[in-house]
């Protein structure tokens, strides 16, 4: 199902202005800091928050229009939502939770339960069927919530911070489930997150929200490499390196080697490096930093309080320096320079896309 939305919502001390379009089967990540309006956007799409201006169309059918006074109730929109933290029904078993949507739509108990069992099996959660949600770990609860949202076969899936407050392993599991789902049956999906790695693992495209406004949109690689504001840079301005991890080092397709933390799991992975973790040197560095490459400065972005350098080389990187540091190195576009990163500064997540 496609989504077309162009609307305003005025809340006390907060104004949200949105314009977005999703094609059938597309996955869009909405990135933004807390309080930027991400959750309000999601609530508007699923019908929990009416718009004050403009309209929302699902599959070119108006579901909310301030002028026409049209409003389709959430239970009639057929949108699956996975909320931040657990919103599982504590008084129902895991199985009954997953069966809830079908039961609410009038499906017979036996049929709904059989269907719910299938969904639990699909997520390898069948052993928890009779458990109460309170006895699940955060990651398990979140995956049950995902199964519950999917059990009604929604046309659109909305995910609110699907991996926040989970440990690294649980995050990876949720991402794996979502990715597998995408390969089996593409559902138009909107992921609200402040974790760029969610976006990187799952989304085709991102929009960045700040104070209720879309400040940038496009493919994630583009947004990450050309962040339009300091905020966006802090949030998504990461260097992402794809490759294969083996024995504590990641090897890229072009053969470059990046030493990663020793406990990183082997296999196809994405390493992310914060620009501030990259050090620049005029001469080849010695000492603890085992990752060092000779690079060329392709771009310099000078701000009063920091300088960003785009580096080309075996592993393209973004580096961030203080203005004093940049001055001491006398950086210029086209210069050759050594860049180093400590292995402990590299974050590795399994690359589930390949």
């Amino acid at each position, binding site marked *: 199902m496609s989504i077309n939305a162009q609307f305003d919502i005025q809340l006390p001390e907060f104004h949200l202005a949105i314009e977005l379009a999703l094609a059938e089967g597309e996955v869009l990540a909405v990135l933004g800091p807390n309080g930027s309006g991400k959750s309000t956007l999601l609530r508007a799409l699923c019908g929990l928050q009416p718009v004050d201006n403009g309209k929302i169309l699902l599959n070119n059918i108006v579901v909310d229009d301030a002028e026409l006074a049209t409003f389709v109730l959430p*239970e009639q929109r057929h949108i699956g939502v996975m909320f931040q933290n657990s*919103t599982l*029904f504590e008084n129902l078993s895991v199985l009954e939770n997953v069966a809830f949507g079908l039961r609410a739509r009038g499906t017979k108990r036996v049929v709904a339960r059989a269907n719910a069992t299938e969904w639990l099996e699909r997520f390898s959660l069948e052993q928890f069927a009779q458990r109460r949600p309170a006895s699940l770990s955060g990651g398990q609860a979140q995956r049950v919530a995902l199964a519950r949202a999917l059990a009604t076969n929604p046309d659109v899936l909305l995910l609110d911070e699907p991996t926040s407050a989970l440990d690294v392993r649980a995050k990876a599991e949720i991402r794996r489930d979502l990715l597998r789902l995408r390969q089996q049956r593409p559902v138009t999906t909107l992921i609200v997150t402040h974790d760029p790695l969610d976006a990187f693992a799952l989304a085709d495209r991102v929009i960045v929200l700040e104070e209720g406004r879309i400040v940038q949109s496009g493919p994630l690689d583009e947004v990450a490499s050309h962040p339009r504001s300091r905020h966006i840079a802090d949030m998504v301005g990461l260097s992402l390196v794809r490759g294969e991890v083996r024995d504590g080092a990641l090897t890229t397709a072009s053969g470059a080697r990046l030493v990663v933390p020793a406990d990183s799991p082997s296999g196809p992975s994405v390493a992310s490096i914060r620009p501030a973790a990259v050090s620049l040197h005029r001469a080849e560095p010695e000492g603890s930093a085992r990752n060092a490459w000779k690079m060329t400065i392709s771009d310099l972005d000078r701000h009063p309080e920091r300088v960003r350098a785009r580096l080309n080389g075996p592993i393209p990187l973004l580096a961030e320096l203080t203005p004093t540091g940049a001055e001491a190195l006398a950086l210029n576009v086209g210069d050759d320079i050594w860049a180093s990163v400590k292995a402990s500064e590299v974050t590795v997540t399994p690359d589930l896309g390949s």
Partner: protein
Amino acid sequence: MTRLRIGRNRSAGLQRPPAAILAIAAIAIAFFALPFIGLLWRVPWGDAWSLLTTPSSLTALRLSIETSLWATALSIVFGVPLAWVLARYGFPGRRIVRALCLLSLVLPPVVGGVALFAAYGRRGLLGDSLFDWFGMRLPFSTAGVVLAQTFIAMPFLVLTVEAALRGLDRRTEDAARTLGASRWYAFRRVTLPAIRPALIAGAVMAWARALGEFGATITFAGNFPGRTQTMPLSVYLALESNPGQALVLSVVMIAISFGVLLSLRDQWLGGSSTSGGSR
């Protein structure tokens, strides 16, 4: 001269309240306990059974249980929607409406009875119409007892359920809606089970209050044996004519109330509360 404390009781001194507080608290406990001990001491235990099973006692007991259960049922049927509206809908004057609905909590029950008269009495606001339309006379009837008890008892339930509804994570209901649940279905399957502990606690408290109702009942419904004379009324009356019976009936009421409080503490108000119920 430091003493070493060893073993399990090593840190007992940390948790033990100061002696002065202990002493004052002990006085308070005695203050509550002594009347009941006195009562038990005065009860003519030898005649207890025969006093309890006199026709007048049994009639009062049955009437009390019947009317208080009706009052509890009415409190639930009307109190839960009222609590819902008070908790969920911001409308102008909500604070005033809320105060009005809870007024009988703090009102002297006799005044409540007088007010009920003014509304449903024969010369009251609705008294005439009720009689003309339905042939109903509330004052001095068993239905009047139920009305008076409901008037006094319902706020207890409203207060408890409203607090529970406010404490509920509304996103759970939101999730139910997005899964295709109508408002009513979400209320039945999600909200109601979540507030059930508070609902039970509120209902039990309302019931205990209805059972003990005296002032509003005697004012509005009078004191007719078999029709409006409930337990508290017959205790009060027996005090003059037959103190032994009054004492025995009192002990029965205390036993019921004490049992209610104990069960509440154990199951619904206990320290390890399982949900964000009554706060």
